[in-house]
């Protein structure tokens, strides 16, 4: 019989529902089929004109009803769609979830489409004065709500009947992993039996693309979009901006088994460590990333020898992949060159606030399906990064444990350790 308490006497946290949306499609079935066949979701941008832009490709989600309605609406729909799938798989009441909500989502701003329409609704005065005057005359709350940082979670809480004040969080590109960590911690503290953790990001606007471009973070390999994201390759030149969502239903193992739920995996450990080196660059010795990996292992009560696969952050930026390799080779030693380490981002791009949740979902599926998704576009290996990246083709393999990394701007480093079976 499974133990209900972990090595530190805390409730063991199980995953009983998984949902996912990426540029590859809606739902686990379509995503998994594409991911394991090495298909890329990266495509030319059609949502807005690409005049003057150095990067003209992305992994945007263009096939949802809200895809053209702005970042807030699309982020909500992405979150709602993934959460619906996860709650349905967990066989819980989709209108009365009954546990807290942790949402990783992008910071919100007034969309330019709304800014233009407000500004051009009359010509009495100019600049900010006009915007404010027009704004206070609005009769509807629609635009207002897109500018409130808590509104998406508020709508989700209404939709799914989650309990209490929902937490919306941002730890940049580690946000999705942090949302899961918060859910795990709430269950471990005994505050709840179950939690809904979602990472969603539908904020690939022109301005977002330009901002990352100005920081030289994006790939400019526009000619063959599906080849642009090439983690760990010598000619990698930046990440590909993308959208998506991942949702997990987390439950104490005891409560999940008591209601006869199917256990999809175990969230064994979470670790984090902030970096104080630079706003966008990691400490050259990778010590914060190393500390985050080690903290996750300690939290899981595992030694490094017990990790069988790494779902890498693997953004395809020169900086990240080098730093991630340094951190993994430091923690895992010589074993790292023979350990499978693959990057889902080679196919779906970087889904930013959603990435940690999307990749946790794929990590859990890797264990359940005994198939490791490949790192595609690995045609020109970086000789300085000696890893088994599961190049270009999926690999059938029994995987019992996964480490999933998430690193972000602002010194954010969060790592998750997952297991296929309870101990």
């Amino acid at each position: 019989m499974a133990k209900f308490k972990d090595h530190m006497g805390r409730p063991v946290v199980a995953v009983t529902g998984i949902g996912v949306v990426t540029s590859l499609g809606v739902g686990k079935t379509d995503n998994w089929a594409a991911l394991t066949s090495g298909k890329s979701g990266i495509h030319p941008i059609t949502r807005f004109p690409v005049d003057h832009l150095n990067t003209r490709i992305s992994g945007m989600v263009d096939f949802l009803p809200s895809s053209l309605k702005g970042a807030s609406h699309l982020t909500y729909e992405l979150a709602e769609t993934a959460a619906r799938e996860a709650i349905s798989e967990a066989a819980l009441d989709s209108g009365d979830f009954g546990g807290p909500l942790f949402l990783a989502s992008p910071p919100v701003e007034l969309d330019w489409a709304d800014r233009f329409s407000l500004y051009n609704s009359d010509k009495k005065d100019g600049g900010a004065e006009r915007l404010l005057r027009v704004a206070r005359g609005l009769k509807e709350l629609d635009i207002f709500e897109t500018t409130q940082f808590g509104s998406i979670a508020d709508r989700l809480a209404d939709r799914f009947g989650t309990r209490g004040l929902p937490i919306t969080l941002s730890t940049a590109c580690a946000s999705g992993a942090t949302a899961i960590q918060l859910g795990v911690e709430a269950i471990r503290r005994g505050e709840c039996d179950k939690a809904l953790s979602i990472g969603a990001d539908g904020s690939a606007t022109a301005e977002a693309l330009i901002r990352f471009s100005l920081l030289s973070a994006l790939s400019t390999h526009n000619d063959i979009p599906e080849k642009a994201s090439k983690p760990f390759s010598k000619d990698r030149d930046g990440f590909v901006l993308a959208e998506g969502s991942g949702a997990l239903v987390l439950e104490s193992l005891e409560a999940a088994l008591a209601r006869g739920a199917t256990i999809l995996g175990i969230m064994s450990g979470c670790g984090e460590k902030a970096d104080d080196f630079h706003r966008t660059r990691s400490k050259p010795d990778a010590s914060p990333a190393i500390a985050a990996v080690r903290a996750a292992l300690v939290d899981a009560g595992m030694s490094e020898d017990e990790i069988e696969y790494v779902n890498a952050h693997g953004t395809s930026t020169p900086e990240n992949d080098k730093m991630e390799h340094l951190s993994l080779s430091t923690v895992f030693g010589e074993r790292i060159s023979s350990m499978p380490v693959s990057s889902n981002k080679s196919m779906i791009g970087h889904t930013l606030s959603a990435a940690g949740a999307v990749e946790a979902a794929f990590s859990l599926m890797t264990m359940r399906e005994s198939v490791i998704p490949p790192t595609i576009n690995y045609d020109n290996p970086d000789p300085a990064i000696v890893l088994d990246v599961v190049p270009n083709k999926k690999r059938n393999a029994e995987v019992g444990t996964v480490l999933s990394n998430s690193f972000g701007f602002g010194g954010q480093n969060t790592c998750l350790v997952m297991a296929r079976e309870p101990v």
Partner: protein
Amino acid sequence: MSSHDVVITGIGLVSSLGEGPDAHWQKLTQPGFQPVLETERFAPYTIHPLPEIDWNLQIAKRGDQRQMETWQRLGTYAAGLALDDAGIKGNDELSTTMDMVVAAGGGERDEAVDAAILAASESRNDRDVLLNEKLTTELRPTLFLAQLSNLLAGNISIVHKVTGSSRTFMGEEGAGVSAVETAAARIRSGQSTHVLVGGAFQTEHSDMLLGYELAGYLHRGPWKPVWQRQGSEGGGVVTGSGGAFLVLEQREHAESRGRRIYAELGPIVSGRARRRLGELDSEIVALLKQAGLPAGELLTISGASGAHAATTAEKAALDANPALAVRGFSTLTGHMKEAQFPFAVALAAMAIDRKAGYPAFDASAEKPFDEAPKAVLATAIGYHQFEGMGLIKAA
């Protein structure tokens, strides 16, 4: 009393009243103190502006200051004050093991670039192309980092070396409530020994006003105390720039390093009323029950924003309990959004530490309170959504 109790060992405050607990105490306890107002710059809106601040005192490197706009500087500065106050700043061992939960909105956009784009949009139909043209050429590359919500925490890590963990919660007042609630839960469960928690709000930017005014929340016309704005022109909220950070610490940890303890954190409770269904009144009453209020008169530091519906509901619920002596501090500081709840907790802790209450900030609506408080209630009922409160007790 337990070794895992949560106590407050550091307070960092900035508002129009000045900086630090002493300056705030001195002004807030002056009967009839008049708020600092700026009525011209953002007319028809009144705001409470930042005081003069020498950023160098908490952000030593000019290079760091240049990477931030005022919002991040303000938060980083207030965080530094709290760390100094708790004797943590400059202590590598304590800083690198310290956890952090920051409540944040977003940073300032470039108003000049935005205004130029909007002006050009009047004569252009290809507005999406216009946007690309202007943003690719006129945006400062590093401005993005000054806007990112989690980069306030990022800057605190860089400037003050707080690197145990770093989390940013978003969502107006509710983010501040959740930040304090989560930090306290971490300490009580033994996950953290000391946590930096707080937020900042910089209202002196048109977009920060627009965030309220898209729903008509801002008060217009002559300034009035927070409880007196019903029926006036506008939505009732007067904003202020400010920041509030707290160092929360496990009692045993604080005592072992011989630190002064301001107060202990009692229950922190939060909720999400479905206000459209009329649940706000009953939600506030329910939270008051959960907060474990002691018998007898209770000083109550209210974060009421002035927003008509929320402030009416909060006032009715507080007035229904004759033991509560309410102080609406937004009258003197303005509404500071994400920083509102940490600010309320700080004022409550100061009253306990100094064994005295605050005089009425608005004598026509607030009753006298002359005791030495053993416990103080702090509230933050969101102007639009989310509610929270907490009981702060003598340690």
